[in-house]
């Protein structure tokens, strides 16, 4: 399967015929409007200053954002190395300044930043608007004039980091600030309203200006929740308002570890970790906006060198700890409720809760405002557990890494060091320092949690899949917990023999010639093999082998698990009984008293077993039954050998040459192998 290709016909182009299978038509105007951009509370006095290329830019960003959500990224992409994750998006968009957008430098700048941000492949074809909508069609003007022009344009998502930025600008520095918010989820509204009110109340200077942007779209356009292009829309809105206000900077506030985006798990590759405020993304925004503005228009992240915990401290130090619980970080908005605004499972929730606890701000948000407690509640298998385990493990590793080890682990730093200005070496040093501080914060929270819950940890009364049990299990001796060679949670004995074949748990373990032991999934063929290896050179009839392995449990592998004998097992017993009679007769004829005695004992045991099992009646030998048993046993052995061939070819070579199968089965090695069992 190749990457998903989609044609996106926008605005006036939406009605065009396209010779393609999968066309997305986005209409921002009636009739049949399915995308509605609205900007609230813009001052009428500023509106007239919006240049047409920025009006185009806002529409382009809206279409890109909606198409991003309307086009799925496919599955996990395991078998094709994430090829489906990266989509081919071909846009046709009407614009007011077609000559400008067709300029190579502008077109390349737009394509470059979008393709890095969302990791998709973009082609954007521009056509001249026949009748461009005026921008006031998208604007709900505020009741009153702003009365002043803001000094700062801050992108305010209502999350913890952007709250820190707002506090810094409005409460600490008293700047005249415009907070630009993209309202992506209706569930946020009340929480956002509360935050705004609190910021208004605590403003050291003028009350901040709140600009809200919303995009309503048909439900049929909601397929992909990753929304990698959301920060483009955000930045575009910020840049447009900066342009309206004659400012030359747009400010993001995002903590450094999320912004720099080093992978938290080894499966996280490329934009599977967000590039929302990656330095290369911001540099791309800045380049594009400056080209459009015809003057430098900077896009910066003022919290690049701060951890999230440090941001929380900043909020508390400003006396704004009470705002923390009204900020919202969760990306699983579908799980959100008033009582539990955070799922506790997504990377954002995990990051947030660690930061709050590390900063000592636990009193400012209820632990039960998370769907799953960070430290002591059970985590489901899958993303929730993997995310938390990876997060903590990465922190543990980083905390123990030298500078050299850090850069030998995170080659992704190569993308960053030259995007930040200044010396690449110095940037690298700061990145290392940032990640070490973050790792210390995480480990501090884990250590404090272990101390606070020491008695529950010791008593093992916490759920097994909670974080504190994942990092420390008192039932496991320290040498087991560290896992030795990483081959087993239970260490193999130091004096393990070079050759063994044994049952371990539900599966089997095979070691041959001192090689690394191989674990084999449960299968009956291994039980037959063990029986053969235990008695080299002894010829077993297939029935002997069947009974020897299954014994009283013959029903289980063959039958229905009911009370009665399984038909095949019945036949196997009958056949073995008949064989024993024949062999006994032969031994008596040969006057082999020892053999006769042994066979007699076996016959008596078998009859006793049959009696206990309620077998009645006379069984007759049937060739087709014997064939069935032979096929069953020999096929099981051959399947077992085929698996061994995959993982331990030398053992396979040996066993294949030493075992002969048929109605009789025998293991006859040319050299004696000292098997242990």
């Amino acid at each position, binding site marked *: 399967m190749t990457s998903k290709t989609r044609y996106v016909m926008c605005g006036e182009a939406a009605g065009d015929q396209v010779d393609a299978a999968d066309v997305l038509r986005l209409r921002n105007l009636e009739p049949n409007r399915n995308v509605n951009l609205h900007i609230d509370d813009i001052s009428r006095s500023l509106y007239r200053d919006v240049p047409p290329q920025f009006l185009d830019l806002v529409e382009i960003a809206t279409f890109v954002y909606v198409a991003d959500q309307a086009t799925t990224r496919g599955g996990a992409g395991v078998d094709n190395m994430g090829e489906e994750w990266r989509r081919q998006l071909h846009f046709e968009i009407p614009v007011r300044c077609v000559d400008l957008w067709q300029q190579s430098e502008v077109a390349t700048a737009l394509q470059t930043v979008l393709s890095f941000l969302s990791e998709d492949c973009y082609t954007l074809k521009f056509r001249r608007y026949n009748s461009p909508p005026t921008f006031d069609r998208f604007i709900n003007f505020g009741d009153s004039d702003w009365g002043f022009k803001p000094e700062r344009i801050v992108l305010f998502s209502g999350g913890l980091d952007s709250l820190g930025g707002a506090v810094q600008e409005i409460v600490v520095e008293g700047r005249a600030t415009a907070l630009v918010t993209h309202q992506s989820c209706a569930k946020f509204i009340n929480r956002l309203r509360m935050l705004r009110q609190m910021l208004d109340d605590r403003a050291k200077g003028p009350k901040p200006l709140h600009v809200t942007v919303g995009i309503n779209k048909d439900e049929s356009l909601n397929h992909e929740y990753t929304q990698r292009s959301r920060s483009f829309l955000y930045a575009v809105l910020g840049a447009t308002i900066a342009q309206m206000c004659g400012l030359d900077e747009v400010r993001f506030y995002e903590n450094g570890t999320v912004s720099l985006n080093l*992978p938290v798990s080894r499966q996280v590759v490329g934009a599977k970790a967000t590039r929302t405020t990656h330095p290369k993304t911001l540099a791309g925004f800045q380049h594009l906006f400056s080209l459009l503005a015809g003057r430098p228009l900077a896009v910066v992240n003022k919290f690049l060198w701060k951890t999230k915990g440090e941001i929380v401290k900043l909020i508390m130090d400003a006396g704004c700890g009470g705002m923390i619980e009204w900020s919202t970080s969760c990306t699983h908005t579908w799980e959100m409720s008033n009582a539990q605004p955070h799922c506790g499972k997504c990377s954002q929730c995990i990051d947030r809760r660690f930061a709050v606890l590390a900063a000592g701000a636990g009193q400012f948000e209820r632990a039960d405002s998370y769907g799953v407690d960070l430290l002591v509640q059970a985590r489901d298998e899958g993303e929730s557990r993997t995310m938390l385990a990876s997060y903590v493990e990465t922190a543990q590793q980083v905390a123990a890494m030298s500078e050299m080890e850090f850069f*030998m682990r995170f*080659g992704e730093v190569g993308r960053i060091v030259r995007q930040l200005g200044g010396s690449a070496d110095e940037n690298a040093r700061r990145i290392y320092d940032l990640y070490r501080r973050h790792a210390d914060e995480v480990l501090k929270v884990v250590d404090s949690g272990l101390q606070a819950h020491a008695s529950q940890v010791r008593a093992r009364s916490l759920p097994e899949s909670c974080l504190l*049990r994942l990092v420390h299990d008192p039932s496991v001796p320290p040498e087991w917990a560290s896992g030795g060679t990483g081959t087993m949670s239970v260490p193999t004995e130091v004096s393990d023999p070079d050759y063994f074949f044994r049952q371990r748990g539900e599966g089997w373990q095979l070691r041959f010639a001192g090689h690394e032991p191989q*674990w084999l999934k449960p299968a009956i063929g291994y039980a037959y093999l063990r029986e053969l290896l235990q008695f080299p050179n002894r010829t077993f009839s297939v029935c002997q082998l069947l009974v020897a392995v299954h014994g009283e449990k013959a029903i289980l592998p063959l039958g229905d698990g009911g009370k009665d004998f399984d038909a095949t097992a019945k036949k196997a017993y009958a056949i073995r009984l008949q064989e024993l009679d024949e062999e006994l007769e032969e031994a008596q004829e040969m006057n082999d008293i020892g053999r006769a005695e042994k066979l007699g004992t076996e016959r008596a045991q078998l009859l006793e077993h049959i009696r206990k099992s309620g077998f009645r009646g006379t069984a007759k030998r049937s060739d087709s039954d014997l064939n069935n048993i032979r096929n069953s046993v020999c096929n099981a052995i051959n399947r077992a050998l085929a698996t061994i061939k995959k993982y331990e*070819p030398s053992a396979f070579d040996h066993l294949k040459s030493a075992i002969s199968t048929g109605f009789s089965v025998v293991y006859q090695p040319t050299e004696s192998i000292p098997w242990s069992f």
Partner: protein
Amino acid sequence: MGHTRLGDLPRTRKWQEVVSLIAGGAGACQVANAVIRAAERGLNLASEHAALVEAFWILTQLPVAAREPDFSAALRHRGLPVPDNPGLMDIVGAVSEAIDSRLPNNNGRTDLWEMAQAAACECIVEAVTKRTGGLFGVSADDVKRTMASMATVKQFGDFARQFYGRLTDKVLQYYVSRTTANHVGNGMRFATLAAKAEFDKALATHCREASKIVEAFAGEWFSKTNWEKKGISRDDAKGFSHVAMQKMVAELKAGAK
């Protein structure tokens, strides 16, 4: 405003075998073997993947450029946008940019591309810091001298081995990390996260061991190609990469040792 997306291994038989091996207690070597078999299609694509070729080609150019009188100019000539007297992180950044610029607009980019790019940067850091004993404070002259020293059969073999070992580890962990955390806990495969981390280390060690197969072959190929052709082209690198990945896959599939 950012988040990370994780995934699971598919519920197909080949991948569930990997899951059951991890759950059951299989060692790093056997898990690697099973992953390689399950991911065979992806790895076959990898052997001539443009990212792999580009990353490896750039690695072949670094020692050669370092032997030229003007190192910066020699790097720039090869498409690496470095400043004059580049430090180690300047070179790492330039390598990353050069690989990115080879595939603008993500057309054809896959996760392997990302992994090859990161592996190249990491092995440059390792090669230089291992020889200079430090990361920060290493002068541009030391970086140049160290890179020039990697143009011998032995040193380039080691350099190439680091690259393929790291890349293979990344590829294996790309898959394995989707399931290992599900097997941590009391009575499970990994008693604690520490045990899981040990398993990850064992997997990395196994990849490094397996990459020995590339070492001697790489050093001799580098020396011979440079001598006979007066330089290594991307086509040469492609040919080498194809064989090297085949050797790595065969080595990892060879099973227990």
